[in-house]
């Protein structure tokens, strides 16, 4: 850059002020981090600062005036308690944050010396932070120094690279040093480094190509493929092949309906020569109640359908069913959200009101709505400005004001209330400013809402405006993650400037299509699952094994707890008996979390309890107890060897061993066994078995036991408990 940014030193002649010169130093030195003096409510040892300096006025008061000004010593600035502690000259729990010979230390001394100005009217104000480069393509393993400049209201520019803070959004791809030196690791893809200075943020987007030749691409079936493949081409990652029919059928059945394809479905599908058969399967699955059951379970947990008391049962059943019925009827997403947010009445006539029992406090309403439907995490903004975001307390309370007119009365259902709209002006007090705040959508101005109008309806109206930058994006990103394992923005509910999508064009296109379709959820799933990108094999090629985020192949994942239980029930032929529900009810149809207590497998494999609005409550990771459960839990043993189970039925059925093995493979994997597998399995079923005393078992008993072993072995394969 030839313009030559004014350095901090060059500015030394100008009198310093707190906002522009001192607060950034405190932030860089982590004095005002959440763990230190910005610890909520208390600070450290009586010295309190605002998180990341978002409240400079308060910080100034605390430094200069609190404790009779004991923290600063204008007569001998370098002997100020503030500096003695920061330099660890006096014992400091936080250790040494500023070296006495550093430029920052000297700046603080100078500021005290100059009379500790907060801000003069004539002082320029910061208006923007810019990072250079803002977008760059770099090779894996390389380094890049970032430069940061701050722009001020008087047109001046400062190089603040030294004082800015840096953080990569994917630490497996890149790391940024305190000085802004970015080091890339070996992984190809897109990574963003967030730069923070004086309450403002900026992002450097780095593209790390693998650089492999991409000369053969599978056929594009829709815009998803065009945009995924364009990205792969750009960064040089060749995609895997399209998966085979068995894999597709199993994958799409698990992803849409949360179940294995039946043996009959698998057999028919494999035989079917119709080139359009994959689309036909998607249609059939979307029509089936299994789709509604599976997705209702997902939403019910996010909407906190949890059972604390026995008396919650009816409302939990009703609320879960309401979601399920809405999905079954393919009610447009914006309508579902509107029905939920503006629900009135009582649970027996409008089950959607149950949400207002679970999410009772306006605080939780705001945070849940923001995170779930807008993909924005507002939790921080209740107390302080969101550190990575542009949202502050005013935004928070503006959103809360939509929920300010909710009335509650007793209802005829035990422990449930009737929800209604209290006529009146919608507003909420900003706890910081003590001012009443009118409702406003994120980033929008205050809305004029007549006292007769339910502000919640206005919130829903704002959400479904075509131009709403969050609503559609948050949903398509969430569903993308459901089908592709990783969000285009990840975590899927953390959309912000500083966490950019790996494929922004694709996210935009999906959102636009979703809006255009009238928020048609089935159409969205259709679009996602019809794409070649979704149908790619999970088997990596020579180049894409390390690609974790560009969707150059299908990323396998362990089956969610409920789906796994249903799959085990299907393969073993022994359905689980759930309390209060009709025999034959599948785990994906369970209405609430109470069954996690009655069915150990659900808990062990991480079925959520409905505590959090975040999908991350569902535990995907592997654990020893999971392995032990699959290997030798009593439940599982009982299922494998149970009367009327699959082993029992196969024993009683006519047919050859080969036919039975074929049936098991079709059920478990939606594919036929390979010749080798068949040979091995046949051999196993024919072997002789001895009992504990070493006496040979009679052949029928021996075969029964071998069949049980075979089933047990199949369900302990990764191929079984993974969707791949």
């Amino acid at each position, binding site marked *: 850059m030839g313009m030559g940014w004014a350095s901090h030193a060059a500015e030394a002649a100008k009198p310093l002020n707190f906002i522009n010169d001192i607060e950034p130093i405190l932030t860089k030195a982590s004095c005002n981090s959440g763990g230190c003096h910005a610890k909520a409510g208390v600070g450290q040892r009586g010295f309190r600062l605002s998180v990341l300096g978002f409240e400079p006025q308060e910080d100034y008061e605390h430094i200069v005036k609190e404790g009779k000004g004991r923290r600063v010593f204008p007569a001998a600035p370098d002997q100020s308690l503030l500096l003695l502690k920061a330099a660890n000259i006096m014992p400091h729990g936080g250790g040494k944050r500023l070296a006495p010979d550093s430029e920052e230390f000297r700046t603080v001394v100078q500021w005290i010396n100059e009379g500790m100005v907060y801000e003069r009217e004539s002082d320029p104000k910061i208006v923007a932070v810019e990072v250079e480069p803002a977008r760059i393509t770099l090779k894996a393993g390389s380094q890049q120094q970032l430069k940061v400049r701050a722009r001020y209201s008087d047109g001046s520019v400062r190089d603040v690279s030294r004082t800015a803070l840096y953080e990569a959004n994917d630490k497996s791809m890149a790391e940024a040093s305190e000085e802004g030196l970015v080091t890339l690791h070996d992984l190809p893809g897109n990574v963003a480094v967030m730069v923070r200075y004086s309450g403002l943020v900026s992002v450097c987007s780095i593209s790390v190509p693998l650089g492999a030749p991409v000369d053969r691409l599978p056929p594009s079936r829709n815009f998803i493929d065009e945009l995924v493949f364009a990205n792969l081409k750009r960064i040089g990652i060749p995609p895997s092949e399209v998966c085979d029919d068995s894999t597709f059928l199993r994958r799409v059945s698990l992803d849409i309906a949360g179940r294995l394809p039946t043996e009959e479905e698998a057999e028919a599908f494999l035989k079917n020569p119709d080139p359009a058969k994959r689309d036909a399967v998607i249609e059939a699955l979307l*029509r089936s109640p299994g789709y509604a059951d599976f997705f209702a379970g997902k939403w019910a947990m996010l909407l906190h359908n949890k059972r604390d008391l026995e008396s919650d049962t009816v409302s939990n059943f009703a609320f879960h069913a309401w979601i399920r019925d809405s999905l079954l009827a393919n009610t447009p997403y914006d309508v579902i959200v509107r029905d939920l947010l503006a629900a*009135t009445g009582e649970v*027996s006539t409008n089950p959607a009101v149950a949400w207002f029992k679970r999410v009772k406090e306006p605080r939780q309403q705001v945070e849940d709505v923001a995170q779930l439907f807008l993909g924005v995490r507002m939790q921080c903004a209740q107390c302080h400005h969101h550190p990575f975001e542009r949202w502050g307390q005013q935004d928070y309370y503006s959103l809360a004001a939509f929920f300010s007119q909710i009335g509650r009365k007793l209802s005829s259902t*035990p422990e449930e209330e*009737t929800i209604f709209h209290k006529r009146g002006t919608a507003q909420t007090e900003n706890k910081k400013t003590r001012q009443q705040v009118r409702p406003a959508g994120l980033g929008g101005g205050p809305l004029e809402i007549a006292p*007769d109008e339910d502000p919640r309806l206005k919130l829903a109206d704002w959400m479904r405006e075509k131009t709403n930058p969050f609503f559609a994006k948050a949903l398509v990103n969430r569903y993308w993650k459901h089908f592709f394992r990783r969000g285009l923005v990840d975590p899927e509910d953390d959309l912000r400037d500083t966490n950019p999508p790996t494929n922004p064009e694709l996210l935009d296109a999906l959102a636009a299509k979703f809006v255009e379709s009238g928020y048609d959820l089935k159409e969205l799933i259709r679009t996602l699952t019809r794409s070649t990108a979704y149908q790619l094999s999970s088997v990596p090629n020579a180049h894409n094994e390390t690609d974790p985020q560009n969707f150059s192949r299908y990323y396998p994942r362990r089956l969610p707890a409920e789906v796994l239980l249903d799959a085990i029930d299907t393969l073993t032929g022994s359905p689980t008996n759930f309390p209060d529900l*009709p025999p034959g009810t599948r785990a994906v149809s369970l209405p609430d979390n109470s069954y996690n207590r009655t069915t150990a497998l659900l808990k062990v494999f991480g079925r959520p309890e409905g505590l959090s609005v975040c999908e991350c409550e569902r535990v995907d990771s592997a654990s020893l107890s999971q392995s032990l459960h699959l290997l030798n839990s009593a439940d599982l043993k009982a299922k494998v060897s149970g009367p009327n189970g699959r082993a029992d039925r196969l024993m009683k059925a006519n047919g050859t061993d080969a036919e039975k093995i074929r049936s098991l493979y079709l059920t478990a994997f939606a594919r036929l066994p390979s010749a080798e597998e068949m040979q091995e399995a046949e051999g196993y079923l024919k072997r002789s078995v001895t009992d504990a005393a070493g006496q040979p078992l009679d052949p029928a008993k021996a075969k029964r036991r071998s069949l049980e072993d075979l089933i047990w072995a199949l369900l302990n394969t990764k191929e079984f408990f993974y969707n791949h």
Partner: protein
Amino acid sequence: MALKNAHFTGACLVSLFFAASAVAQQVCLPAPRLLTVTPMGGQAGGTVDVTVTHQHCDGPQELLFSSPKITAKPVVGADGREVPNRFKVSIPPDAPVGVHDARLRSRLGISAGRAFLVGSLPEIHCAGTNHSVETAQKLMPNTICNAATAKRAIDFYSFVGSRGRRVVVDCNAARIDSKLAPVVIMADAKGDDLLVSRTSGVLDFTPPADGTYLIKVHDIAFKGGTEFYYRLALREVDVDGPVQKQETTARVSAFSWPPEGLVPVAPGAETEPNNQPSQAQQITLPCDLSGSFAAATDLDIFEFQAVKGDVWWVEVASERLGLNTDPAVLVQRVVKTEQGETVTDVAELDDITAPMKMGTYLPASTYTGPAYQAGSPDVLGKFEVKEDGLYRLHVRDLNRDARSRTENQYRLVVRRAQPDFALVAWAVHQRLRQNDFGTLPKPLALRAGTTIALEVVVVRRDGFEGEIDLAMENLPPGVTASGLKIPAGKLQGMLFLSASENATPAFSVAKMAGRAVVNGSTVTRPCRLASVLWPVDYAPTELPKSRLMADVPVSVTDFEKAPVSIAGDGQTSWEASVGETVKIPLRSVWRSEFNGASIKLKPYGTVFAAMKEIDLPIKAEKTEAVLDLAALKTPPGEYTLAFSGIGVTRHRPNQEDVKTAEEDQKRASEEAAALADAAKALTEKAGAALPEEKEEATKAAKAAAEKQKAAETALAGITKKLKALTDAAATKDILDFFVTEPVRISVKPAPVPPVPAPVATSVPGTAPAAPTALPSK
């Protein structure tokens, strides 16, 4: 969260307490209760065999209906004896279609009503084995099926649908007293769901193709049993025809609708669009119109001119029509200027306040009042016109939201004051002990020597504040009623029903009414009776539901007499002057053992509330109620005074049954012994018989042995029954409250003090000595 846990723990402790105490002590003396009638209705012009389930309705039974046209006869078994709990119900063609109350009369008297429907469609009764696609019960269009869900099961029905031929499925349950919260699902032939209704029980479905369709029914939480019954109607309906639903019972709140003299059909109608002030519908006052909240977020705005000084009463009925609505009215004054218009709120009118606060079990899980909602979310209120000019009236449904519901109608009446009142009563349920979470239906079934207390509440209309006299007529012989007044301005009073100590079994349909002077003339208004529907052990998880009964059945029995009768000693009315002290002797007749030392009697009503409770020692024949009218500050007036006290009686039920069974057993035992002797003799005879007689004798001996065996089997059965009856008749400690027979007290104004002699000296601060009250009888 902490609170919840605490609550939960509390609930657990409570149930432990219950479990422990239930063995030792029951709550409330047995009262006859009809639980279910299966099937729950029938077609006009037909007969139907019904089975009833009940509590405490043993012995000879009679099934009665609120419509005398419907009659029932006991089913007679092959042995010529009446089969308990089974009846053949005859419904003549002219029996009114709709809901009637069925009730069971037995030796303890009459039960409360249970809904019984008369319909115009053919009916079937489904046995409840249809829990899978394969076993689906076939249903012809235009039939009604009576059934009940089973626990953790789904009932399947199949019918053949034709493409484009609309059908409406209507599952009538909660509104005919059932405990079922029905989920009704339309599915394809495989059982895959197509359309679901979970809130209304109604499915409006047009088959997309010819073929078999399935209807699935289950409880929202998969509960079941005979109390989870339903009537499923499948009707073919014209493409644009209205959805016809089965009749339902009336909510308690409906007693205050309609106002006397209101025409059945509103002369006016609301017309859309009127959601915006600019679209306001022009009306003139007074007005009476029907409207609809049907459209999502509907707001109905009306505009009218009003004159300064006018007072208008606004009444809206919607919830009381049986809908799940919560109407609210806003009246605004509109001043139009060149700059636009300014609008000021004049009145906001909302709910009809409950005259007696309904009991809740939240948050403390304790009984806080009756299980009856006599208030309503509907609107009844007034606004005063302070300035001539233009006004707007908004009607909206507080339950409105994004959903559209065509069934949500309302009636809006704006009128000049027409003072009036409406009454409803229910038998008192009193909290009997700490952590009493139960609620029981209390039929007006009196034991000889008993008094039953009823709470009576009033909704006062259009500023009527006068006192209301309560009375009952057409009572069975031996039963009398005495009423407390509902005092001027008050919302609550009491009625007492007393059976004389020597009353004999009788039954009648009585009438309750209130009488008051309104605008100078005396008016009489009926008083409806409400009842809880089911015995509820633990109300925090099963809120007691209630409804208006069709009429007021009253019975008296001498099968069991009151464990204790407490009444004025030969005198039922008293006279006194303000400030006097009245001593009322009370006489007690004890017919049962009681636990404890005494019963503490507390007066009913607010007038004597400050009175000290009376300690009535168990077995004491006499006591005295002392009313210090000076201390109680009782103003002149006519009063009814009754007391109630809680006691634990040692109840010995059904001794008759045991006696009869003992006699049966004795007879059977003698019979068996005689047969055994005979068989023995024949066997011996056969042993000693000559060869030519041997065959015959052996045959006779064998036949006798078989007879003996049969007699022994019969004896075993009778012995088993005797044991069951003896167990049931074992003495039980029962906690209940006992009401004294009321007495009347007429309090006269204080006599005018004699004119003081001009020279007499008076001592300041001393009141004249109270003269002894004189009995007026």
